[in-house]
């Protein structure tokens, strides 16, 4: 029985939260909904740990959904790279049930709590599904599952601030445009190749000569995903969505949603297309590289002038997306490794930061830096977590952010890109400014309202915040896991065409997936 179960782990990864979601709604009680959410998200976390352990050595799990052979059937395909992303998503996802109850109590009407959990689980399903699938159209489906539930989640912030509704609507419009572009690109690819399986697509695209339709498809996919990533200048939906969504939602989205979108982009850049495809190389060098650098600066500078702490961090996220895209444009293994490492490190750091801010908002009732003066003394643990996360954002040694910067700058030097190397450090200095504005307000200024008694955050919120902040330190001190996993992922991505050609896919009527060790032929 257990044997049977482990064979179906890739499918269970998405099926468990997908089944749990309607259950939450059917039972209607927020306590039961919470319990179901907790169990489902912990289960996905355990599954992703097991999956990563299986593929970290470079092997690939190919699971055929319903026993239908790819390329016609939908294939779930897990390698070192997406197993790592699964771990990020499900890891953050597993913390949210601990964090959310205390936080949403003041932000969402009680009657909506079970809907919140439903939407949250659907969002988790979508994000995990995007990551786990090896079918391009399936990516679109899951992307929409996660996006649609996200719109609902953002709109739930309306009790506290009605602007959440307009933000959610704005996000809905932008997100749908992105999804449309993406699916148009997929349609063109399908016309050209007649397949939607990513590995199969890669093989068929290699055979195509220089082809304008292919270029158009690539452009559509890049723009579509660019919107979901919040790639500068397509980021306009993000600050408001993050600022007005309930705190737990913001923490979850900031840590996972854009990360999964970046994962998808990397999949398309390297698994479906590749560096052999000249149009992609040109686009990366002449379009994405400048946009990434502009994001690093423009968004950081805007962040400096924000008065709302959530918006400040949201703009910081846009800048950080710039770093991740920059890594890719160096067209090297170190560069891609840097991107993957930063994907992980930034998810952990930003998740922790938004959780800390959520705790501050809960107690102070406002995310404005003005109102948070003196928080250093009134909520010492929460504020300490914020400072620690801020240090990681800046990239101070012994934090995860430092490891990211180290790899990114190394990659720049290796590629002889001197100017980007200098710009990377210059933009980290902008992070010093926006983080320190908050630190000064919290520690060096007198409280806005000294007579008001402010309690420390609820223990569960504090613990989940510190789990992430602690992780951002742990992975800064001992980066062997992240660097190992990221470089395995980068190997997998850059060598993906080679590997995929050699994987033996046996008939799978038994529904049993096949684990093929790397390099075995």
């Amino acid at each position, binding site marked *: 029985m257990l044997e049977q179960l482990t064979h179906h782990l890739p499918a269970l990864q998405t099926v468990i939260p997908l089944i749990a979601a309607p259950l939450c709604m059917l039972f209607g009680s927020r306590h039961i909904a919470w319990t179901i959410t907790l169990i489902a998200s912990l289960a996905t976390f355990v599954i992703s740990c097991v999956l990563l352990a299986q593929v970290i050595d470079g092997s690939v799990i190919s699971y055929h959904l319903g026993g239908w052979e790819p390329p016609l059937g939908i294939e779930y395909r897990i390698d070192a790279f997406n197993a790592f992303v699964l771990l990020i998503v499900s890891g953050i996802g597993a913390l949210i049930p601990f964090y959310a109850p205390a936080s949403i109590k003041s932000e969402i009407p009680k009657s909506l709590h079970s809907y919140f959990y439903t939407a949250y689980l659907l969002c988790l399903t979508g994000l995990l599904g995007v990551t786990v699938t090896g079918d391009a159209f399936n990516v679109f489906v899951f992307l929409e599952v996660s996006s649609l539930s996200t719109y609902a989640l953002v709109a739930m912030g309306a009790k506290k601030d009605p602007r959440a509704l307009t933000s959610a609507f704005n996000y809905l419009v932008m997100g749908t445009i992105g999804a449309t572009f993406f699916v148009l690109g997929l349609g063109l690819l399908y016309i050209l190749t007649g397949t939607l399986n990513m590995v199969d697509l890669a093989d068929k695209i290699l055979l195509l000569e220089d082809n304008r339709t292919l270029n158009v498809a690539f452009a559509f996919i890049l723009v579509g995903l660019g919107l979901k990533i919040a790639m500068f200048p397509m980021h306009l939906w993000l600050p408001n969505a993050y600022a007005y969504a309930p705190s737990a939602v913001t923490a979850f989205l900031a840590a996972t949603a854009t990360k999964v979108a970046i994962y998808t982009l990397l999949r398309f850049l390297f698994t479906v297309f590749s560096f052999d495809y000249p149009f992609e190389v040109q686009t990366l060098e002449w379009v994405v590289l400048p946009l990434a650098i502009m994001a690093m600066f423009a968004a950081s500078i805007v962040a400096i002038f924000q008065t709302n702490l959530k918006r400040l961090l949201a703009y910081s996220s846009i800048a950080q997306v710039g770093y991740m895209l920059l890594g890719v444009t160096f067209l090297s293994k170190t560069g891609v490794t840097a991107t993957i490492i930063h994907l992980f490190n930034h998810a952990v750091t930003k998740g922790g930061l938004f959780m800390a801010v959520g705790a501050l908002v809960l107690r102070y009732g406002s995310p404005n830096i003005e109102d948070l003066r003196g928080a250093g003394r009134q909520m010492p643990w929460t504020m300490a977590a914020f400072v620690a996360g801020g*240090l990681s954002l*800046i*990239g*101070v*040694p*012994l934090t995860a952010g430092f*490891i990211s*910067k*180290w790899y990114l*700058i*190394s990659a720049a*030097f*290796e590629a002889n890109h001197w100017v980007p*190397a*200098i710009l990377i*450090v*210059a933009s*980290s*200095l902008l992070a*010093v*400014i926006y983080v*320190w504005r908050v630190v*000064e307000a919290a520690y*060096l200024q007198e409280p806005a309202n000294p007579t008001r008694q402010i309690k420390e955050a609820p223990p569960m919120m504090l613990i989940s915040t510190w789990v992430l902040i602690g992780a951002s330190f742990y992975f*800064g*001190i*001992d*980066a*062997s896991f992240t*660097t190992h996993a990221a470089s395995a992922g980068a190997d997998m991505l850059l060598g993906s065409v080679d590997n995929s050609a050699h994987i033996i896919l046996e008939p799978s009527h038994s529904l049993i997936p096949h684990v093929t060790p790397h390099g075995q032929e």
Partner: protein
Amino acid sequence: MPLTHETAIALALIIPFAGMILIGLSDRNSIVRDIISVLTSLLLFSVTFWLLREVEAGAVPELILFDVMPGLSMAFKIEPLGMLFGVVASGLWIVTALYAIGYMRGNKEAHQTRFYMCFALAISASMGIAFASNMFTLFIFYEVLTLSTYPLVAHKQNADAKKGARTYLSILIGTSIGFQLLAIIWTWVATGTLDFVHGGILSGHLDDSFAPVLLALYAFGIGKAALMPFHRWLPAAMVAPTPVSALLHAVAVVKAGVFTMLKVGVYIFGIDYLSLTGASDWLMWLAAASILIASIVAMTKDNLKARLAYSTVSQLSYITLAMALASSLGVMGGAMHIPMHAMGKITLFMCAGAIYVATHKTNISQMRGLGRTMPFTYAAFLIGSLSIIGLPPFGGAWSKWYILLAAADTGQLIMIGVLMVSSLLNVAYLLPVVAQGFFLPNPDDLSEPAAKGSISTRIKEAPLLVVLPPCLTAIGCFLLFFYAQEIYNLLAPVAFGPETATAVLGGSPS
């Protein structure tokens, strides 16, 4: 259980850290807290002193903690230069710990527990810098030192302190991330290692024409060395309570800067590579300019601590200059200047603090005649000044002597001139303070002629714990003159190379 090298290094890092935690736990009981602070410093010094004996006997204590990234480890290895810095910082911590108690209580400062905690953490970071075996480890502790001293600078939490602390943090973090990190990663990409190796690691891995550029990234990246134009943070840091200025901004932090500079010169570039490529020529001129300009600025400052701060900027550039001369004698002189200047400058700062505690005066123009009411403080100030100026029989004479020798040796006659002029400028900005104190009448006394009593009734010194430490360090300045031989022997392998060390050992500094 016999003490092994590994545990001793670990202890040197852990003791101040543990002290910090204990200090934090004893927040309620200020007497216990202060005793812990002093005990920690004594304990740390005994460990570093034991290590010093081992290093003098030729041992190379090592401790490898863990790999942060493949090929980059957090590791420690004590060579003579680091040993010297470690002993200086931990030794002077004892006096400063005593002094801090008197000063903080005498001034009734707030947030004393936070103050002592950050202080202990800063010392822990200094030990990490001193004993680091590669540039990566050094950089980590370098940043820890910056961050742990930030709350000390912002201690008073008023507008001035906030502004000073902002300058402090932005310049130190800005230069270290903006330049030094780039330089380190560049070195890493070029050579594949960051270990400190005598003779350098860059030779053969770096295009010679890039050597000056890389050196510039290091030299400006090491903001703690206060090389102009990145020196503004040091005067800004003077808003901190005086014990901080004394130990951290005259000894630990700034010496960590010049120490890193020497490390880069000797162990990353290598003296031979520097002199071969001429990479450090421009640095020599900049350091010389920094020496003179800072001295002249110091003369214009009426605030005593600001004057001392600019004097520090100038003196630090002596060490940068010595390194940039790219000769063995220069390294010897520069390294020797670390303890010599530290002992002198800490004396001066502690005296300035004593005057502040006793009279709440900060400006030199208000201090006329104070020498007669505070004779011990002023005597200590005089001795410290003479050592900084470089007059025998005080320690400062030796380091200046070796830097002069190095300048002569490399044929840099202009540099000899610079050093001479600078000594005169030292006289011009330090001795008037003492002269005013002893020879000019105190304006307050004139209004009250009845105050002329016997000498003992006129003496109004600061509390004992504030006056005793500068007197001790003043005696230290004197003793260093006679113990220079020991320092010379310790440093010989660094300056002249491990092989030739034994041959030159006979050459005495006298």
